């Protein structure tokens, strides 16, 4: 069963359509990627999920029940543009946001102490936000997002602005949160992190869903007719009517070759035609990166 579901969401601003019949279904304990070029409608969808704005039509379900305003307490939201009161002290501010999410002051303090210690931020408590660096501010905001232990977490571009060390810390925390039972939706342009973290994705372009499913399946589906082969020793494939050679190189006593098969040629045909060329170490359909898929899908639609 899916933890969160949005069905046929449509949203218009005047004559501009921001979302057109978009549906997503997020399984429990899944990391769900929301992808799309700038201006595709991701942020609008995220705002609708957070009930910051309402959809013109369509329905939202959390745990199979219709989403209600009270559910904000089970959702944690880290917006793309990080915002904290600059003149306010870090600790006070964290407590304030926690209270707005429904925690008591006492409980907020208890949990904040744990997280500040865990992420090595104890010294920042009495400082004003403006005294912190941007990355530090983001860490504070990350904590305020997850403090009320929401079942559904929504991160809009969570890694921008972090150095590699902190980005890694945050990545680990996201994985840790999933282990503890949270479901995570995150939007990003960083396709590397999608391959690393996401189980499922939805790709939105110009207000419409154009691709969705599990990351592995999508990559397999888009693998198409390209293969990566590795031979021991220096092997040169002869040109053939079965395939085109895209790339050949010899390195570390191994030859790496990329092929593109002609139409109507099966995997067996290829293997038969190359098997005699040398000692084959590996033969794999070439999985396209999410980056390639993203670009190809979006460009084919434009």
């Amino acid at each position, binding site marked *: 069963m899916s933890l969160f579901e949005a069905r046929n969401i449509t949203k218009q*601003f*005047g004559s501009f359509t921001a979302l057109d019949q978009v549906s997503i279904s997020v399984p429990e304990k899944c990391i769900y990627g929301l992808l799309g070029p700038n201006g595709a409608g991701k942020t609008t969808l995220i*705002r609708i999920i*957070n*009930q*910051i*704005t*309402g959809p*013109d039509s369509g329905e939202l379900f959390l745990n199979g029940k219709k989403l209600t*305003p009270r559910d*904000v307490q089970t*959702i944690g*939201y880290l*917006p793309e*543009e*990080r*915002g*904290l*009161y*600059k*003149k*306010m002290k870090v600790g006070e501010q964290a407590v*304030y*946001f926690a*209270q*707005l*999410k*429904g925690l008591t002051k006492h409980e907020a303090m208890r949990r904040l102490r744990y997280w500040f210690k865990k992420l090595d931020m104890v010294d920042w408590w009495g400082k004003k936000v403006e005294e912190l660096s941007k990355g530090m501010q983001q860490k504070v*905001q990350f904590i*305020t*997002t997850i403090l009320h232990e929401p079942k559904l977490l929504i991160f809009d571009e969570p890694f921008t602005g972090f150095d590699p060390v902190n980005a890694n810390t945050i990545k680990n925390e996201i994985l840790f949160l999933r282990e503890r039972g949270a479901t995570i939706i995150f939007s990003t342009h960083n396709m590397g992190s999608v391959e690393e973290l996401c189980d499922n994705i939805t790709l939105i372009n110009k207000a419409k869903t154009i691709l969705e499913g599990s990351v592995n399946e999508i990559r397999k589906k888009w693998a198409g007719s390209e293969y990566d082969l590795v031979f021991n020793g220096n092997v040169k494939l002869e040109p053939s009517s079965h395939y085109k050679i895209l790339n050949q190189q010899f390195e570390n006593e191994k030859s790496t070759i990329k092929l593109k098969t002609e139409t109507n040629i099966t995997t067996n045909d290829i293997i038969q035609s190359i098997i005699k060329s040398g000692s084959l170490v590996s033969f794999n359909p070439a999985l396209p990166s999410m980056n390639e898929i993203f670009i190809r899908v979006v460009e084919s639609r434009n």
Partner: protein
Amino acid sequence: MNKISVIIKREYITRVRKKSFIIMTILAPLLFASLVIVIPIMMTTGDKDFKKIAVIDDGSALFVNVIPDLKDADFEYLKGKKVGDLKNSFEKDGYYGILYISSQLITTPNAIQLISKKQPPIGLLDHISNSLEKEIERQKLLSYNIENLDEILKDIRTNVSIQTIKIDETGQTTETSTGISMVLAYIGGFLMYILVFIFGTQVMRGVIEEKTSRVVEVIVSSVRPVQLMMGKIIGIALVGLTQLMIWVVIFGISVTVVKTTVLKEKNSTEITQNIPQDLMTQGQQTINVEQAQELTPQLAEISKIFDNAMNQNWPLIIFAFLFYFISGYLLYASVFAAIGSAVDNETETQQFMMPITIPIILALMVAMGTMQNPESSIAFWFSMIPFTSPIVMMARIPFEVPAWQIALSMGLMVVTFIGFVWMAAKIYRTGILMYGKKTSWKEMWKWLRYSA
């Protein structure tokens, strides 16, 4: 509801803790007190420069020593001198100027000149012309050869100082002072203007701060935008009320201190009774002497001002002030909040500020005019229109306003601010999440009609 109180608390505490708030709260009464003390001193002392003026004539000796010396100016008659003798050297000789009076002055009003290096003050000119007018009048009267003229003149010279006594339905009389009413009207109207404007713009700044720092997005994922807006407006209103209360307490304490220590208590009814009998024949000065059995004349005067001030309808003034402050603030603050939500930074607010400042400034101008004639129809209408009524009504109340007018004005105010808060909430809800778009009034009108 619980969340709104969390927001109110934050808005309130962060502001009250600010140094600027503490400084303003302490400094404003001090500034005000110093104004009250310094301005009268400046007005009475005036120009400190002592002026010596040479008076010369064309040899007729008609106006010898007729101009009395002033505190800051002496008039010295130089017999037989001519303008030409002094023209180039008067400054070196220590004179401020040369006053040349021709004998033609009796028939030709402009046969008199004051030659000086600097523009002479109005007070000095008035003094000269008044003295000379009196002298010419006396000389003309003399030419009729009336017997005992000097005694007659002394006898008919009078000063008039009107005592205003208000009478109500039960026939009870209270001594009032139009001067006091004017001061109260001025303070009431002006303070209202300052407070509504200061705290209204604070709301706008707060909204812009949240919008530009993008805090707003985090918050509206936890509370409804209307709650955030109202929390901010109410929080800042409480800051305003706190400040007002502190000022009222400071004012109250200083009044009591002054009254009990400097002035002591004096039976004021006695004075009131003296006035009607003495007024016609003896004038102001005699009364002062009588009063001064216990107090010096100035203190007696101040004591009277105090008594007059106490006769104002204080409960009404305070109630009306609080009411108009809260409602006027809510009205303007909601407009300010809507504007703050519509722009990306403070410089962009300017195009929207004009239409807001105009009614406020207009109200202030009408309020100042109101003091001349509190019953005029312009004062009436401006004290009914909700955008101007807080300021104008505060200026009218010290002059007594019919109860139905106050009730109507307050009723209109309530209806309007509810309407405006509602509209502002709708604009705010859309505006705070809009970035990078130049907003116009038309755009805001469109937002008004969006559904949530």
